[in-house]
């Protein structure tokens, strides 16, 4: 990778701002799940496009880090490409698509299928950090509810789903309780990924730039998805396997493959799918080779 672009500080933000953000992150780590306000800066990305995650990554990244960026689980979605390029330009650090090689993984809407290890940092881009915002839009109110650990609103909401639909109708951004205390938004990851947050050996940092909040889940912290004794939390399951790699344990995206509405189910995690195929695994789709989701970023061999 080329050296960092000149004319800007390492990782774009000035050192004073990074220090301010790292202080807020320390507080967030000390109080798992608690939302710490911070003065988010305008970034050269639009608010709502990952500015919180970008500011967190910019504040913790060093010259020796190796960065992976994913959006919807994939390394090659345009927004992930854009953010990865930004850090490559602004820091000169090595980037990777391999979860195991990365020291920092910035993500939007997924947790990698490959398990994280101690020493790794997972940075989430968060649109709405307040888990109660659909129930109580006023910050002044929700701050009090968190202080009192008064989460009745959310429990009633989930109960009403069961009463009306027979099941909890939250499929992503499914609320969790961290370390037995704070109700927290896991960001809009599918609830499929929620169990990966629990007792994860990696440090999980959450940045909401537009809403100007940071929060964190330290390594090996309890993260429970809300549920009821008679309606235990369950994750999505597919009747299909990945059409390309045959995985039955990963989150599958649905592709509409022809004008007649034909469907194909494939791994949303492009690295996981690619690794399995590299190891010779194949799914039921005969055309799998022509649809390599990593082809566009791999470039010529």
């Amino acid at each position: 990778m080329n050296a960092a672009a000149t004319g800007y500080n390492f990782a774009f933000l000035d050192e004073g701002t990074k220090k301010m953000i790292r202080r807020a992150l320390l507080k967030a780590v000390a109080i798992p799940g608690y939302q710490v306000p911070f003065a988010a800066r305008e970034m050269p990305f639009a608010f709502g496009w990952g500015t919180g995650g970008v500011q967190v990554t910019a504040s913790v990244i060093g010259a020796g880090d190796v960065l992976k960026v994913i959006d919807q689980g994939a390394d090659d979605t345009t927004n992930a490409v854009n953010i990865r390029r930004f850090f490559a330009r602004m820091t000169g650090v090595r980037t990777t698509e391999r979860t195991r090689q990365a020291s920092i993984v910035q993500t939007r809407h997924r947790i990698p299928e490959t398990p994280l290890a101690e020493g790794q940092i997972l940075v989430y881009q968060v649109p709405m950090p307040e888990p109660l915002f659909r129930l109580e839009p006023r910050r002044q109110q929700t701050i009090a509810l968190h202080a009192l650990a008064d989460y009745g609103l959310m429990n009633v909401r989930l109960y009403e789903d069961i009463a009306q639909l027979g099941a909890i109708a939250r499929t992503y951004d499914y609320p969790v309780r961290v370390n037995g205390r704070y109700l927290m938004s896991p960001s809009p990851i599918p609830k499929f990924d929620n169990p990966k947050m629990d007792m994860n050996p990696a440090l999980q940092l959450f940045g909401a730039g537009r809403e100007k909040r940071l929060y964190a889940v330290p390594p090996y912290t309890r993260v429970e998805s809300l549920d009821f004794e008679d309606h235990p939390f369950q994750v999505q399951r597919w009747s299909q396997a990945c059409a390309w790699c045959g995985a039955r344990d990963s989150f599958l995206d649905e592709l509409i493959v022809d004008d007649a509405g034909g469907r194909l189910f494939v791994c949303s995690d492009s690295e996981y799918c690619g690794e399995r195929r590299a190891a010779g695994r194949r799914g039921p789709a005969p055309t799998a080779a022509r649809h390599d989701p990593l082809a566009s970023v791999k470039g010529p061999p």
Partner: protein
Amino acid sequence: MYVAAKGGEAAIEQSWRLLAAERRGDPALAELSVAQIRSQLRLAVDRVMSEGALYDPELAALAVKQASGDLVEAIFLLRAYRTTLPRFGNSLPLDSAGMRLARRISATFKDVPGGQVLGPTPDYTQRLLDFALLADGAPPPPQASEPLPAPVPRIETLLAQEGLIEPPPAGDLEPADLTREPLLFPACRPARLQALARGDEGWLLALGYSTQRGYGNAHPFVGEIRRGWVAVQFIADELGLAIELGEIEIVECSLVSQFAGNDRTPPQFTTGYGLAFGGAERKSIAMALVDRALRAAELGEPVSAPAQDEEFVLAHADSLDASGFVQHLKLPHYVDFQSELELLRRLRAAQAAGAGAARADGQEAA
């Protein structure tokens, strides 16, 4: 035929080139220069400087050019640059009474010390399309006018002599700075005013308008609008005295509205305040309306209308926040949508099974 909806670096780079070509337009026409924009699209530049929170006409004009005239995008560009600049400290409060005036009107008094000065305004142009501008005709120059007197006292000061208007807030408050501290609620008035000054003109215009139509109890008068040049002064620690950094052009609006009074305060006029760079006069009036509406709680008035709701008004005022989050809907949401699809199919299957079972039960009974 399936087309991969995933794009890589090549697609992004091509989108940059297409955007640049679209911005340039017809290459047979002369390219618009930043100097032309700065000089001839002044009100666009002024709005971008105001909401971009950076007084730099050249960079604002560059942003307007780069954004192909999309002012909200230009404001974003300027803010993203501004955020990289060091912050030296607070300037001294501007002395707008000492303004070198270009325009000054009051709607509350027919004549005022210093006089009414219309200045450059589109208010009385009759809004007829001027087809002469289609050709390249130079307009007739304005008549030479006498230089305006300075300093001209502010109307508020005159009202205050009779005790009819609330006293100005204590001047020693440390100014808030939302670029260094997040906006928390309830906010102090300096933070509120800063958020309004950076706020989107359209949002403030609509909210201000709503207070005039009964959503909030506003009976305001324009005490004064003044536009002109004021000196910015800064105390440099090394020198220990105030030095003048230069002049900026501002427009200031002071609205006067009634206040019924309470046990502690006799009935008096209260003010709403608006300030913007250059000639962004509409913005300054809208800001003053909203500032006054947001003082409802402080003045013991009922808080019932959207424009009086501090968190609602300020949390949605910033065009960078709003534009970014609204447009983030363009980003892929495959994973969340997939989760919803799966749920919807499961719920429909469960309902169909339930309905089928219910029908079967009914048939058995019959």
